[in-house]
């Protein structure tokens, strides 16, 4: 029922750093999340894109050195497609994703606290309905725990280099879009003067 105390402490410490990063990244804020989906504020894309490229280099290096293993989720198309769609609707209406809902609770936001309770309720329904959901989740086939390099028979480093290149192009395209990188003193909460023409 419990991991070892050391592993629990390690999880807590990792989480604290993750929470600080999410809070400083301003993604525990409704206007930043919804602003991304209104294609106005590119903070979410900048953070996620950078994290994916930087993370990929280290994770594949660790795996190749034998210090870690990949933890890939299976490509159960029914579950991934329906789940992704419901997730997209829920995240936009709530205005936070699961991790940033928890971080927004740390920021004191009351709507995020209602969101966390709802998330728990959603998980309760999922577990209770699990047997009935299996045909939906597996309905479009199970491709297993595959990676894009597996599917294409290519080296992961080819894809990582491609992502890094796409990232650099993205940085150049997003220069000056939304809130600029390095901005450190937004003084108010969600009230800003629209800056785009």
């Amino acid at each position: 029922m419990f991991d070892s105390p050391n592993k629990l402490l390690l999880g807590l410490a990792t989480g604290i750093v993750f929470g600080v990063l999410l809070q400083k990244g301003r993604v525990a804020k409704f206007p930043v999340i919804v602003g991304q989906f209104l294609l106005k504020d590119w903070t979410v894309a900048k953070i996620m894109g950078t994290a994916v490229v930087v993370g990929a280099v280290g994770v594949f290096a660790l795996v190749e050195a034998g210090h870690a293993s990949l933890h890939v989720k299976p490509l159960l198309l029914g579950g991934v497609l329906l789940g992704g769609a419901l997730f997209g609707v829920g995240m936009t209406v709530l205005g936070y994703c699961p991790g940033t809902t928890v971080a927004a609770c740390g920021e004191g936001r009351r709507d995020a606290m209602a969101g966390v309770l709802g998330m728990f309720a959603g998980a309760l329904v999922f577990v209770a309905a699990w047997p009935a959901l299996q045909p939906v989740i597996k309905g479009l086939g199970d491709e297993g725990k595959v990676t894009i390099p597996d599917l294409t028979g290519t080296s992961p480093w080819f894809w990582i280099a491609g992502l890094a290149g796409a990232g650099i192009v993205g940085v150049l395209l997003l220069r000056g879009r939304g809130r600029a990188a390095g901005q450190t003193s937004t003084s108010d909460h969600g009230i800003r003067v629209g800056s785009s023409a």
Partner: protein
Amino acid sequence: MTNPLAWKSWSPYAVGVGIGLLSWIAFATADHPLGISTAFENSAALTEKAVVPGVEQTNGYFTAKAEEGKPPKIGWEWMLVVGVFVGALVSSRLSGDHSPETVPTLWRWRFGGSPGKRLVVAFLAGGVMMFGARLAQGCTSGHGISGSMQLAASSWVFSAVFFAVATATAFALYGTEGANHV
């Protein structure tokens, strides 16, 4: 101020590099990707085990997870979620970026200032979001960041679908005019 923790925000690229490096640490020290929603599923399963007598026999979930070697537990990922709350609390307190806001500005512009309405809809939306995350076995962290960096096919499909649907939902709710209110 010289203490970066007292700053209200950091560059999104710096934050992205930080999350990337934190993923290296998570893989190296715990052999675990960063993810949030599994912990909610574990909490739900433990709760149902505690309050519904015999649920382990009637719901195949419990046998299936035990066979996978992943029985519901309070583990590394559960503490990760606790840590995210603590880290965000400390960071927001140190920078004075703490807000008991219930109704965000954009929401108020579109749906009015009723706190009750916002809280009820937030609860329901949180439920739909988590239900979707568990159907897909991951969220913005587990699929969007951790899965994408492992070049997992499921995660790239999930990310494309959720981003497209989220964008369509945002424009359906707020229209092109909404961008002037965020």
